[in-house]
């Protein structure tokens, strides 16, 4: 054993004596910290075990729940699609009835010349 190691060994002995003589209040706090850490670990382990147990017990029921959720989602999507279609149809219906109620024939709205005339006419009137 060389001199450095001998010295280090003596230092270690003194340091150990220092930890033995630690303030009791601090020792209690450390003890509490340890309890918290160990309890936390135990809780995690218990939680994991409980989760695993539940999974094993309700294996089929969880599958059923998943299936039901998927069916409900699909039905919801189909419903939304149909609802949108009805909404769009009623909008078109309103436009069509407005066009039909107007004096202009519907073919006038499809005529490009009519649009050009409308734009020119509106510009002239604004000047």
């Amino acid at each position: 054993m060389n001199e450095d190691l001998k010295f280090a060994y003596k230092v270690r002995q003194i340091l150990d004596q220092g930890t033995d003589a630690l303030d009791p209040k601090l020792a209690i706090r450390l003890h509490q910290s340890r309890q918290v850490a160990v309890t936390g670990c135990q809780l995690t382990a218990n939680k994991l075990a409980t989760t695993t147990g539940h999974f094993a017990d309700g294996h089929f029921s969880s599958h059923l729940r998943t299936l039901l959720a998927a069916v409900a989602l699909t039905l919801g999507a189909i419903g939304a699609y149909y609802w949108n279609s009805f909404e769009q149809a009623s909008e078109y219906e309103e436009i069509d009835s407005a066009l039909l109620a107007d004096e202009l024939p519907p073919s006038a709205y499809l005529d490009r010349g009519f649009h050009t005339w409308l734009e020119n006419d509106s510009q002239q009137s604004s000047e």
Partner: protein
Amino acid sequence: MTSRIELSDFLASVERRAFKQAMFAIHNEETALDIVQDAMMRLAAKYSDRPTTEWPMLFQRILQNAIRDSYRRSKVRSTWTTLLSSFSNEDEEDYDLLETISAETESEGLTQPYRLLERSQLIDILEKEIEKLPPRQREAFLLRYWEELDIAETAEVMGCSEGSVKTHCSRATHTLAAALKLKGVEL
């Protein structure tokens, strides 16, 4: 799964040294306690299922990282405080243990309380000198000689080469020996 008792026993065996290590670096009881609790909780939460033989090194790695982080934060936060506190240590330079020891040996019969006082003074001086060591030297010295990790394990915990560990340990030993000799302490 490791038993709760094994984990508790392991933590009980390292908690005081861990606290002291944190105190050497941080100089604040509350922060040191927080660091130790945090390290314990991390070990328990993440590594309790690992073989018990790996715990010492894992715990030291967690602890040293936490100490380093806290040390960096406190250094940035209170540069001025650190500067001022370094001046206040000058008063302690006047204390000479050698005088106390020589007085004791001359006196007739060393009573037990007197020995205890002597011992506690020696512990105080040594701990203060360890606090004064550069952080990396202190870390290497304590891991190697107090926590009894081997050179490879110490290097892994510190994130440096084995050569660096040897250098840090050697420097720490010589600095410590010189500082104690200056104070008249012979181990």
